[in-house]
């Protein structure tokens, strides 16, 4: 049984089409990235999956059930964009209520919220009201609510947006740790983050599915190297690199990375590293294939 199945799924707001005839089949496993520019339909798709909004047409099933079904209670969780906890009630009280709604008795609910708050390193905030927490801590509490009952699938809508680097790293680490048992679908504008976290990527644009596939596409990336070496002088490096054996073409991306096309990626890598060593140039990263950003938006 597939995790999520969309069949010609469409959502319209009046005359505006937010999502158009989306066909998609997602299976459980490594985290799945959901990307696209603003207005691409990412939040609409997540809201449809969670049952917050109704589709205009088409079919959608999650773990074989319609969105909003009782069967999904405790199996599907989410961190919805801009959703806030009640500022008047303590974090622990609200999470306990959610746990009780998922069918846990009072003792189980207490133990479970201690577990999820421990997971996000906020056990001490159990009696704190959300308004007394920082933005990053509130986000972590919201993630903790999504982990109650160890759900099968968790949707995270821009989990690190507006978050400071330490909190963002903690959230990324948490997704990595939990992804052994839970499939995460993560929407974000931070492509570097998604590239490191996710195994596959859904790319939406103007409500349409542009592509869906693995983050590292071995079929297309076998002949390209990406070198990140900001301190290397480009005017000297590029002509020398071009002369290396097995190097076909050298280009530079808008991000300052070097994109090196080869006919033998292994041999070219060795020659490239030798060139860098001979000239005393330090590099930050050498990777096979293009970055996710370059694959989606690059022209090189």
């Amino acid at each position, binding site marked *: 049984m597939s995790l999520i199945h969309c069949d010609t799924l469409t959502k319209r707001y009046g005359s505006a089409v937010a999502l158009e005839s989306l066909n998609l089949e997602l299976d459980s496993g490594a985290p799945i990235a959901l990307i696209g520019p603003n207005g691409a339909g990412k939040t609409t798709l997540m*809201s449809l999956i969670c049952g917050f*909004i109704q589709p205009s047409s088409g079919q959608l099933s999650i773990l074989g059930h319609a969105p909003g079904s009782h069967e999904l*209670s405790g199996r599907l*969780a989410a961190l919805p964009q801009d*959703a806030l*906890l009640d500022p008047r009630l303590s974090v622990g009280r609200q999470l306990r*209520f959610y746990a009780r709604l998922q069918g846990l008795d009072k003792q189980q609910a207490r133990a479970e919220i201690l577990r999820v708050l421990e997971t996000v390193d906020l056990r001490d905030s159990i009696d704190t009201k959300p308004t007394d927490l920082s933005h990053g801590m509130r986000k972590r509490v919201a993630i903790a609510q999504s982990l109650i009952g160890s759900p099968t699938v968790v949707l995270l809508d821009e989990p690190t947006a507006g978050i400071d680097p330490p909190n963002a790293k903690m959230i990324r680490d948490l997704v990595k740790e939990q992804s052994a048992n839970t499939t995460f679908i993560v929407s974000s504008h931070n492509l570097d983050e998604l590239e490191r976290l996710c195994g596959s990527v859904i790319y939406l644009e103007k409500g349409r599915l542009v592509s869906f596939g693995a983050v590292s596409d071995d079929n297309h990336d076998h002949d390209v190297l990406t070198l990140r070496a900001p301190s290397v002088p480009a005017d000297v490096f590029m002509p020398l690199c071009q002369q290396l054996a097995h190097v076909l073409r050298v280009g530079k991306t808008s991000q300052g990375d070097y994109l090196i096309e080869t006919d033998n990626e292994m041999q070219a890598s060795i020659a490239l590293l030798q060139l860098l060593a001979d000239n005393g140039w330090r590099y930050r990263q050498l990777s096979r294939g293009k970055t996710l950003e370059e694959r989606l938006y690059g022209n090189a």
Partner: protein
Amino acid sequence: MKLIVIAQDEVLRLFSTKRGLLSIVGFCLIWLAVLIYGVMPAAQFFGGLAESGLAELLLPEFGSSGLQHWPASELSVYWVASLYLLPFLAIMTAADQTASDRARGTLRYLVLRCGRLEIFFGRYIGQLLILFMVVLVTLFSVLVIVAMNSAENLSAAIASSPVIIVNLMLVLAPYIALMALVSVLASTARQATLYAMVIWLVVSFLVSYLKSVFPDVSLLNWALPGSQISELRSLSDWQTLSLAPIPIVHTVVLLVVGAAIMRQRDL
């Protein structure tokens, strides 16, 4: 099961928030003032009028026959006063059943765990329980006064209490249902109250107009929630239940409409 958890949470929410606790303290103070300066002297006053027969003459609009039928004059005053006061309290306390949770996005956390209708009806039942407790507490306080003023009437007054409780809950049910409906449409408690007032005025004008066009359709007299109160105040004991179908129909209609909107509305 989830319905009970939600209803329980709705009641506990009242005692867990500063606003809820302030409302309780405020209501207790107001009720104390009503008891001391309203129920006690009014009971003596109306008791005297009823005994002398002046009540029928002076206060026909007040439903004086009802005053005579309750076993203690304090209970009579409580009956009439609560018929008018408690609906206002219901409108105020039940205004935020789902409104601010929707505006804040908290409702999204809930619908991932339970059905929209469970939230709608769970919150409604929670508000019913809150007002049930209010009725119990206020009635108990009046019984204490009966015990102090005329202990010989206490057992009869206690025997009449179930009638009063059932009737007051029947009166309050459609008001809470109305607030459940407008709370689905509004984004704050204040907005919900405003919507309730607008709906009230529009339906009132509509009913007045229809009554002028169709003067023989007596059903129009019962179109508004609470329209039976003026009849109810002159009744006592179990005869009061003769008007029960009116608030029951109001409640069912309002809840059905509210639930339908709740099911369809985007979160």
